[in-house]
C-alpha cells in the first residue's frame, strides 16, 4: 500500500462523473482515486484501451450453505473446468458453481471487483462469511432473508410495527448483512406446513398466520426505507417462473407505494399467458411501469443458453421443476428461517420456454429508458454463470450478432416477443452503467462504480475491440483497492477484499422480545446466535442514512 499509480492515454468511461470516452489520466494513491500523483508514480499506458470502474454484481449466489451444497452435489460440474495452482494463487474448480478462490479470480478476470451474495438465512450468516473470507479479490456482502421469518411474521400479524422494525434492524446487525432480501414472501409456510403448496396471490392468507404476502412486502419495504439502508428491500417476487406472473410483479411494485424497492431477476417475473400454459412476453408492461416509477429499480436475471444451476430459497419452485425433469434434486428446509432447492439445469435454444426467457430478458434491457434502474445480472448461476457476462454485453451492443443468435432459437418463442423489431444497441456508456455505475448507485456504495476523486481505486482496463464479447472476456489490467491485481493478463498477487455490511440502530429492548422466542424455538442459545466480528477480517460498515421518503 501507499503506492502511486497513474493510468495515461486511456479512453475513460465514468458515467457518474459525466465522462464519456474522453482520453484522460486516472491517478491513484493509497487505494483511492486522487487528483494527481508524484512524477515517479508507476505508469500504465492505456493507449488503445478503455478504462472504467470495476464491475459490480449486485445479485449472485457465490457463498453460503446452499451454494456449498450445490458445489458438493455436482462433481460433474467441476471436472471439465479446472483452475490450476499458479504462482501465489490457489487451485480450484469452475463450472456453474465455482469454488471460492476460483470465483474471486474469475470475477476479476472479467473486470468485476464487487459481488453481492443475494440470499442468506440469518442462521447461515456465519457460514456465508466463512466462504466470503475465502473468496479473493472482490469486495462483497450479502442480503438477509427475512420474508419467511416466523418471529417477524408474528410481530407483524400482531401489528407490533415498532418492534418489527427493531427486530429487523437487530437481525441485520447480528448477521452482519448488507440488505434485506425477500424471496417468495410468505411461501415457506404453505410449503413446509404439509400442503406442498405455495402462495399465488399477494392477498392470499398465509397458512398459520393472519398475514398476506402483501403485508410482509409492504412492511419490509417500509422498514428498509425507514432505517435508511443504503440498498432498499431486494425482492424476489411471488410466482417466479409462472405464466401470467407479470401481474403479481406489477402488484408488488405498486405495493411499494412510491417508496424505493428493488425487484430482482425481473426477467423471471415478466411472463404473460395463462398459468400452466406457455408463457408469453410481458416485458413491455413491466418496463412501462418501471420507466414511469423512479422509486423502482431492477436487475434483469438474464438467462443464457447452456448450463446453469437452479439454487433458490424458493423451494416449492424447484419442487415443481424437478417434477418436470426428474433430475437429481436437493431440498433443504432451514431452521424455520428459510428453505432451499437446488437442481442442475440447462437452457436450450430449441425449447420454447427457454428461448422466450432469453428474449424477454433482452427486451427488458432494450426497452428500458433508464439503464441506471435496469441493471445486468444472470442471477448467477440460476440464469447461467457470471462468466456469460461478456456474451451478454455483446448481445446488447451488437444488433446483427443478437439477431443471428435469435434466429437459432425457437422461432415461435422469438416471434412472440418484439426482440427482432428492436434496433437499439447499447453504447459503451450504457454498458458501464448497467454493469458498474448503476448497481453501485442502487447499492448505495458511494465510493464504487465511478472514478471521481475519493472513489475506491477499483479499475478495469480492456483492449478496445470490435468483438465486445472478446473484449470483456479478459481485462488486460485490473486494479483492486489501488493494487495492480491483473497486470497485462497476469495475476500478480492475492487480495482478500472487504465485507460490506450495515449496522442500523435499534432499541435494545427488542432483545426482551426476541430472547424468549429463541429459547422456545431456536436450536442455538440466544447468546450464541449473533455473528461476532471474528468472522470479518476486513469489514466496512456502510452508514445508514436518514429515513427515506
Amino acid at each position: 500500500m501507499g503506492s502511486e499509480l497513474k493510468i495515461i492515454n486511456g479512453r475513460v468511461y465514468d458515467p457518474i462523473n459525466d465522462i464519456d470516452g474522453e482520453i484522460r489520466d486516472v491517478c491513484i494513491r493509497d487505494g483511492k482515486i486522487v487528483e494527481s500523483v508524484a512524477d515517479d508514480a508507476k505508469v500504465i499506458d492505456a493507449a488503445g484501451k478503455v478504462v472504467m470502474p470495476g464491475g459490480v454484481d449486485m445479485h449472485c449466489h457465490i457463498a453460503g450453505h446452499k451454494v456449498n451444497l450445490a458445489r458438493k452435489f455436482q462433481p460433474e460440474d467441476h471436472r471439465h473446468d479446472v483452475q490450476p495452482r499458479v504462482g501465489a494463487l490457489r487451485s480450484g474448480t469452475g463450472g456453474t458453481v465455482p469454488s471460492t478462490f476460483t470465483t474471486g479470480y474469475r470475477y476479476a478476470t472479467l473486470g468485476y471487483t464487487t459481488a453481492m451474495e443475494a440470499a442468506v438465512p440469518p442462521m447461515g450468516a456465519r457460514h456465508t462469511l466463512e466462504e466470503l473470507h475465502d473468496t479473493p479479490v472482490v469486495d462483497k456482502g450479502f442480503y438477509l432473508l427475512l420474508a419467511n421469518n416466523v418471529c417477524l411474521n408474528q410481530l407483524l400479524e400482531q401489528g407490533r410495527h415498532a418492534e418489527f422494525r427493531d427486530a429487523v434492524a437487530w437481525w441485520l446487525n447480528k448477521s452482519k448483512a448488507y440488505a434485506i432480501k425477500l424471496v417468495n414472501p410468505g411461501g415457506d409456510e404453505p410449503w413446509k406446513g404439509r400442503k406442498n403448496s405455495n402462495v399465488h396471490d399477494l392477498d392470499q392468507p398465509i397458512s398459520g398466520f393472519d398475514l398476506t404476502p402483501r403485508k410482509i412486502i409492504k412492511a419490509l419495504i417500509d422498514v428498509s426505507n425507514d432505517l435508511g439502508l443504503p440498498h432498499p428491500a431486494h425482492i424476489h417476487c411471488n410466482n417466479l417462473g409462472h405464466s401470467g406472473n407479470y401481474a403479481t410483479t406489477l402488484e408488488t411494485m405498486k405495493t411499494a407505494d412510491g417508496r424505493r424497492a428493488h425487484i430482482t431477476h425481473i426477467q423471471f417475473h415478466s411472463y404473460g399467458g395463462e398459468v400452466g400454459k406457455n408463457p408469453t412476453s410481458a416485458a413491455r408492461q413491466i418496463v412501462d411501469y418501471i420507466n414511469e416509477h423512479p422509486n423502482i429499480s431492477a436487475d434483469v436475471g438474464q438467462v443464457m443458453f447452456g448450463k446453469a444451476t437452479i439454487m433458490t430459497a424458493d423451494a416449492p419452485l424447484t419442487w415443481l421443476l424437478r417434477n418436470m425433469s426428474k433430475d437429481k434434486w436437493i431440498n433443504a428446509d432451514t431452521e424455520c428461517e428459510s428453505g432451499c432447492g437446488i437442481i442442475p439445469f440447462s437452457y436450450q435454444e430449441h425449447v420454447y420456454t427457454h428461448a422466450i426467457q432469453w428474449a424477454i430478458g433482452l427486451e427488458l434491457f432494450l426497452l428500458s429508458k433508464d439503464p441506471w434502474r435496469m441493471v445486468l445480472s444472470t442471477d448467477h448461476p440460476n440464469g447461467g454463470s457470471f462468466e456469460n457476462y461478456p456474451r451478454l454485453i455483446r448481445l446488447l451492443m451488437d444488433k446483427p450478432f443478437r439477431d443471428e443468435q435469435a434466429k437459432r432459437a425457437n422461432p415461435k418463442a422469438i416471434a412472440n416477443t418484439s426482440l427482432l423489431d428492436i434496433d437499439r444497441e447499447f453504447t459503451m456508456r450504457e454498458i458501464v452503467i448497467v454493469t458498474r455505475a448503476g448497481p453501485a448507485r442502487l447499492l448505495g456504495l458511494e465510493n464504487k462504480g465511478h472514478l471521481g476523486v475519493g472513489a475506491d481505486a477499483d479499475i478495469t482496463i480492456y483492449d478496445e475491440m470490435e468483438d465486445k464479447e472478446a473484449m470483456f472476456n479478459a481485462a488486460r489490467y485490473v486494479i483492486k483497492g489501488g493494487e495492480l491485481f491483473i497486470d497485462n493478463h497476469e495475476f500478480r498477487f492475492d487480495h482478500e477484499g472487504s465485507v460490506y455490511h450495515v449496522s442500523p440502530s435499534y432499541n435494545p429492548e427488542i432483545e426482551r422480545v426476541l430472547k424468549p422466542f429463541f429459547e422456545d424455538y431456536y436450536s442455538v442459545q440466544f447468546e450464541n446466535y449473533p455473528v461476532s466480528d471474528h468472522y470479518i477480517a476486513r469489514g466496512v460498515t456502510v452508514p445508514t442514512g436518514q429515513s427515506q421518503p
Partner: protein
Amino acid sequence: MANRNEQGVWEHVPSPFCGIGSDDLKIRVSGSRIEVLENGDAVTREAFEQPLGETRPMISGKPVSLEEAVERAAAVLAEAELPLLAGLATDVAGMRAALSLADRLGAVVDNMNSRAAMRNILVLQDSGWMTTTLAEVKNRADLLLVVGTDVESLFPRFFQRHIWVDGMFVEAADREVVYLGKAPSGYASVSPDGRKPTVLACEDRDLPAVVSMLRLLVNDRPVGVDSVGGIEIQALKELAGRLKSANYGVIAWAAGALEWEHAELTVQITCEMIKDLNQRTRCSGLPLGGREGDQTATQVCGWQTGYPVRVRFSRGIPEYDPYLNATERLLEEGEVDALLWLSAYNSSRLPPRVGVPTVVLGRGGMNFDQPPEVYIPVGVPGIDHAGHTYRTDNVVAVRLFKLRDSGLPSSAQVLEAIERAVRAKLSS
C-alpha cells in the same frame, strides 16, 4: 457468546464433540482441569474432561521443541512423492490450513470419518435428497422414524433437545417415534408422558430389504410376501400409512451406524422414498453426523475445491475420486509415501498403522504402540482455542470459545508453520 463468571465457570458453552451443536453447557475450568457442571452427557463429559496429557512435541518419542518438530514434519512431507493428509479432525481454520498445505505439496486429503460420510455423499451426488435441520425438527416434526441407528449412544441429547420439547407447530405429546432396524439401547426415545417408541427390529443385513419394502408400501405397490427380515408386512404397512399421514415426518439415520457393504444404497432408497412421500405430504431426511469435525472438513473442502472430501492435488488441480483417494486404499496399495494425521478432538483416534513416515498432530494424551516420526500435541478447538465448527445439519456454523490457557498451539498454527517450512525447502 459464552461467558465466564468469577468462579471460572462458563455458561452457554457449545460442545464441539456432540455433532448436534449443544451450546448450553455449563463448565468449570480450574487450571487445565475441566468439569462439565450442567447439560453434559456421556459423549461431551468424557471429551471435555479428559486430562490435558502430554503437551511436548516429540520426534520418535523423544521430546523436542516445537520448532524442531515442525522442521522435521516439513522435511518428511516435502521429501515425499505423494503425501496423504488424513484424519483432518479440526476446526474451520485448521481445515483451511490443511488444504493450503495440501495444495502446495500436491498431496491427497481425506477425512477420518469419510468411509461413513461417503454413504451419504454418494447419494447426494447421484440423486440428491430432501433434508431438514434441527430447529425444523424441533418445531414441526410430528413423526420421527429412525433407520438403522441407535441414536442415543451416538447423540445422547438428541431427543431431549429436539423431540421431547414443545415446538412452534407441534407439541411433545403429539410426536411419535418409530425405530426400524436397530432397537434403542436406552430410554431417551421414551416420551416424557411414558410412551415407548414403536420398534420394528431386524438384523442390519436385512435392513436394505426392509427399507426397500417400506418404499414399495409407501407407493401402494403390491407385495407378495408376509414378512421381510422378520418384520410383518402389516407392521410396515402401518408405518407407511403413518409416514403418509404425518404432517412433517423426519427420517433420521447416522451413516456411521450403517456398517455394511454398499450401505449407500439403503440411504438412497430411504432418500428416494422421502421424495415419494413429498408428493402428498412433507417428509425430510436428517442425516446425523458432525462428530470429530467431519462436517467441518467436508464444508471447507467443498468451498475451496468444489468437492467434499478425498481430493488429490498432485496434478496442480483438485481432483476428486471417492474410491481412489480413500485413506485405506492409498495406504494398502502403497501409493502414498508419507502421512500427516490430524486428530484435534479425540486422542483415541490414532493414525492407521502404516510403514510410511508419519507426522501426527493430535490432542494431548495419545498413546502410540510405536511413536510416530513426529508427534505435535495441538489444542482442542472449543477448549484450548476459539474456532468455528459445523453441526450435523450443515447449515449452522458454531462459534467455539477458548476456555483455558494450555499454551497448546492450534492445528491451524502448526499447519501454517509446517507450510512455511515446506515453502522454504521447496524454494531452496
